[in-house]
């Protein structure tokens, strides 16, 4: 039974969980100042979904953590208490989120999810009871209704307070022995003997423990017995706990009740039989006497039956109707579930109609459309999963007619059909193929065989082909584009946490988070941005008192802005803090021996660029967040790996602005093809300022042997490409070749090459890893004729 492969489900689980957690985090951070009812509902739903999914995948620790948080929000939703310590609440929930995230990371890495949530849960519980205490104190007059679900907490470890007071309370216990301990029946008998001083009126399943065959039942379904006792719940727990070879037990007050249920899964959720198995598996923890139809759910054929007739099952448990329904609603991909209590003990699971329902049995049907309505555009895939949480509390919604419901369902579910999640590997492959296609097109239309031919019709077709290929390319690119919003929202959390720890008051303003960037690039952005924001909050923004003294608003502002500009995305992080201290930076630079010319010749811009050197932190104190001087150079490296640049502008006392320029995509570059010594190189157009045909008179050499070019009264460094690469070429006279003016981070260099060939869009391929990184080469590309052209990495010409 345990052979079910969870792999495919695990992928989906992790994906779904990550999205939920992210969504949750956003909500929590946004709501720190006080949650609206919608927020609470949303958070409750998400927690519920996390709990359900985790339980299905048998990650109990995650499920339990989510459960405790869910309880908390359930209370908030139902009672709407005032005077909540929102900051503490947020801290607590964030802790839960962190725990879940941590466990998810473990699961993703293929490790066991072994974190212990007891501590967090205990604190959440304490907070909840504290809240409850306050809430009750406030609204004493309104006596709580007996059916209030908040009291129906099914956590077995929590003593049911009322029961301990009443004498001779009815309890039911279910006990499992360790596997392989043997003689289960005798052990069960011994247990009853041991307890006989404390309990009366014992009935057990199997009835006669020592009878033949009962041993197997105990092995399989556990040993269930109900009794009356005057002892408290805790005492009884302790007594039972003394049993030798005890594996697990579940003690609850009340008698065994029989239930039956019909359960339908979402259409198209697949693997209905596996899901049904999970349902049964979950039930086994606290139910006995489980029967289901179809009986053989492992069989593939069962899938069809379940899909058509629903999954019917019956079971006995001491739990109340509400608890049972609540548990069942946790089922992932649940469409509807119909639970009813059977009054007579004979079970007829086959007939699900015609049976008289218990009057109190509330029919709870799940209506996904209710939820999708409220979820709006928030991650449509989650809608079905989130749906179930709603129903438990909204049985009244049943009133509307079924026909209208199903019509609405179709209409509202429509958005979910418009989104599919695709494996990123497939997208990468598609992009590669796209690259090949662009090359193949060039190979065909620029084929050497066609040279000199008059091909009017061919050229027309070729143009058409190129147009279509361009469109396809744009579409493929757009498929990979992801908005920056998730990355940006992560920053809220960082700013919040830092403010709390550092005692600062900073607000993060986010602008243009809908800007889209290639998926591959986004992955590299998160860390650098985090670093810059930390720097801004930690080094930039002053303490509130200080700001007040300076006449600035006490609340500091960090602006995080993204915008499109040509083929690039510009991300700006701007703070209104103290700005960079030029003198300090200069001193540091001097200590580190970075200065190469007299100090007074350095421009502000050049001085600011020093912060990107390794080991240069101007902050005297090392804090939790920054100050070790291993920040900005790492940021710089990260940004450069995705082909971006970073620069910083600062006005002392006014604030600092970090500007990141990121290419929209890594894969395709607009390039200028040049020739040097028989090899063709490609230079990214974005770094080319202009091309110059220079005269010998414009050229001079400084005492160190560096060649310089004078142009329009300015002087520029000249780098001869053949010198730089140690290659050979016939073109060495400056008048025979071409100078290309390249710009990188505000610096300019003139590159001398043999000749220009032309502009071309090229697909970037990496140099095989066998070849070590070559300075000045960023990758390579295939030309139309199949030749390889190396792509120049402009930044390589600047660091010496």
């Amino acid at each position, binding site marked *: 039974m345990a052979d079910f492969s969870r792999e495919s489900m695990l992928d989906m689980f992790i994906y779904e969980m990550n999205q939920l957690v992210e969504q949750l985090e956003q909500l929590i951070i946004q709501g720190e100042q006080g949650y609206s009812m919608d927020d609470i509902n949303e958070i409750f739903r998400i927690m519920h979904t996390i709990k359900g999914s985790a339980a299905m995948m048998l990650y109990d620790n995650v499920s339990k953590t989510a459960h405790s948080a869910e309880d908390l929000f359930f209370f908030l939703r139902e009672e709407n208490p005032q005077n909540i310590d929102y900051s503490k609440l947020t801290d607590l929930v964030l802790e839960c989120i962190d725990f879940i995230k941590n466990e998810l990371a473990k699961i993703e890495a293929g490790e066991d999810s072994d974190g212990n949530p007891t501590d967090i849960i205990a604190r959440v519980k304490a907070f909840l009871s504290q809240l409850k205490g306050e809430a009750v104190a406030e609204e004493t007059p309104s006596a709580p209704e007996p059916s209030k679900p908040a009291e129906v907490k099914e956590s077995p470890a929590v003593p049911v307070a009322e029961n301990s007071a009443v004498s001779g309370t009815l309890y039911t216990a279910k006990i499992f022995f360790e596997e392989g301990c043997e003689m289960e029946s005798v052990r069960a008998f011994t247990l009853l003997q041991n307890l006989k001083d404390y309990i009366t009126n014992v009935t057990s399943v199997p009835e006669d423990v020592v009878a033949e065959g009962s041993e197997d039942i105990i092995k399989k379904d556990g040993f269930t017995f109900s009794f009356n006792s005057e002892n408290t719940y805790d005492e009884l727990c302790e007594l039972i706990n003394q049993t030798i070879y005890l594996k697990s037990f579940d003690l609850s007050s009340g008698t065994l009740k029989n239930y039956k249920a019909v359960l339908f899964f979402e259409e198209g959720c697949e693997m209905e039989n596996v899901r049904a198995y999970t349902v049964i598996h979950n039930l086994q923890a606290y139910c006995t006497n489980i029967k289901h139809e179809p009986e053989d759910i492992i069989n593939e054929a069962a899938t069809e039956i379940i899909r058509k007739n629903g999954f019917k099952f019956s079971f006995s448990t001491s739990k109340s109707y509400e608890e049972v329904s609540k548990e069942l609603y946790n089922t992932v991909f649940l469409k509807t579930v119909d639970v009813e209590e059977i009054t007579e003990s004979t079970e007829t699971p086959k007939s699900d109609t015609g049976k008289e329902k218990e009057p109190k049995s509330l029919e709870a049907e799940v209506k996904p459309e209710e939820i999708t309505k409220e979820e709006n555009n928030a991650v449509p895939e989650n809608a079905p999963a989130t749906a179930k949480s709603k129903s438990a509390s909204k049985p009244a919604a049943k009133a509307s007619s079924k026909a209208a419901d199903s019509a609405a369902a179709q209409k509202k579910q429509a958005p979910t059909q418009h989104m599919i999640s695709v494996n990123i590997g497939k997208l990468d492959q598609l992009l590669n193929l796209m690259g*090949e296609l662009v*090359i193949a097109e060039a190979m065909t239309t620029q084929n050497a065989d066609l040279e000199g031919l008059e091909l009017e019709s061919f050229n027309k077709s070729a143009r058409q082909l190129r147009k279509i290929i361009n469109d396809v390319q744009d579409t493929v690119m757009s498929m990979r584009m992801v908005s920056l919003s998730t990355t940006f929202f992560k920053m809220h959390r960082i700013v919040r946490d830092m403010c709390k720890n550092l005692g600062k008051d900073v607000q993060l303003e986010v602008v243009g988070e809908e800007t889209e960037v290639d998926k591959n690039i986004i992955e590299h952005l998160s860390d650098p941005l985090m670093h810059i924001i930390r720097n801004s909050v930690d080094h930039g923004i002053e303490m509130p008192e200080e700001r007040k003294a300076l006449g600035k608003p006490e609340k500091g502002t960090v602006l995080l802005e993204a915008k499109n500009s040509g083929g690039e995305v510009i991300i700006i992080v701007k703070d209104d803090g103290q700005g960079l201290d030029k003198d300090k930076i200069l001193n540091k630079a001097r200590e580190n021996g970075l200065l190469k010319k007299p100090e007074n010749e350095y421009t502000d811009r050049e001085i600011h660029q020093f912060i990107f050197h390794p080991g240069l932190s101007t902050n005297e104190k090392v804090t939790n967040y920054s100050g070790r001087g291993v920040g900005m150079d790492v940021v710089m490296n990260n940004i450069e790996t995705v082909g971006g640049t970073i620069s910083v502008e600062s006005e002392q006392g006014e604030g600092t602005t970090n500007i990141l320029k990121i290419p929209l995509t890594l894969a395709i570059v607009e390039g200028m093809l040049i020739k040097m010594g028989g*090899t063709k190189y490609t230079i990214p157009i974005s770094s080319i300022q202009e091309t110059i045909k220079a005269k010998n008179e414009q050229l001079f050499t400084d005492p160190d042997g560096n060649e310089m070019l004078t142009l329009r009264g300015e002087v520029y460094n000249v780098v001869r490409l053949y010198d*730089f*690469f*140690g*290659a050979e070429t016939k073109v060495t006279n400056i008048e025979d070749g071409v100078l290309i003016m390249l710009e990188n981070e505000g610096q300019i260099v003139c590159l001398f090459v043999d000749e220009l060939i032309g502009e071309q869009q090229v697909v970037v*391929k*990496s*140099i*095989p*890893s*066998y*070849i*070590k990184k*070559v*300075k*000045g*080469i960023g990758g*390579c590309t*295939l030309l139309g004729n*199949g*030749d*390889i*052209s*190396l792509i120049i990495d402009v930044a390589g010409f600047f660091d010496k």
Partner: protein
Amino acid sequence: MENEHIDIVSDVTEEDTTKDKYLTFEIDNEEYGIDISYVIEIITVCAITWVPETPDFLKGIINLRGSIIPVIDARLRFKKPAKEYDSLTCIIVIEYENYKVGLIVDTVNEVTYIPEDKISIPPNAKLKYQNKFIKSIGKVGKDVQLLLDLDKFLFLE
């Protein structure tokens, strides 16, 4: 003994088709061999793009149906004089520890079977430079094959 062995493994021979088989090739009139399981394909010499700042035996990169592969001139790797590439010159594309690399050799001869007991450890004397790239020596009949130690051949500085 030999037959007995084959009987036992006959069921699993399929995965062992490359066992004890070596691709032999010539450099400067000497015959070398590499374990056939590393060999992906053999191609004729095509346009090689030189890459700056690389050792001279690393001739550059080639475009093999869309994938970029570095190529090593085995002659230069053995510190032997370079030779013009001709119609016999081949590139053996190998994959070793996830690195795809092409080896330029004078000519490729054949695939031979060299049983384990015909392979001996080379004499310790370091008479020739290329000795350090030789893992072992195979002898079949009169022929002697120098079997390449790919790890050293590819990665030794």
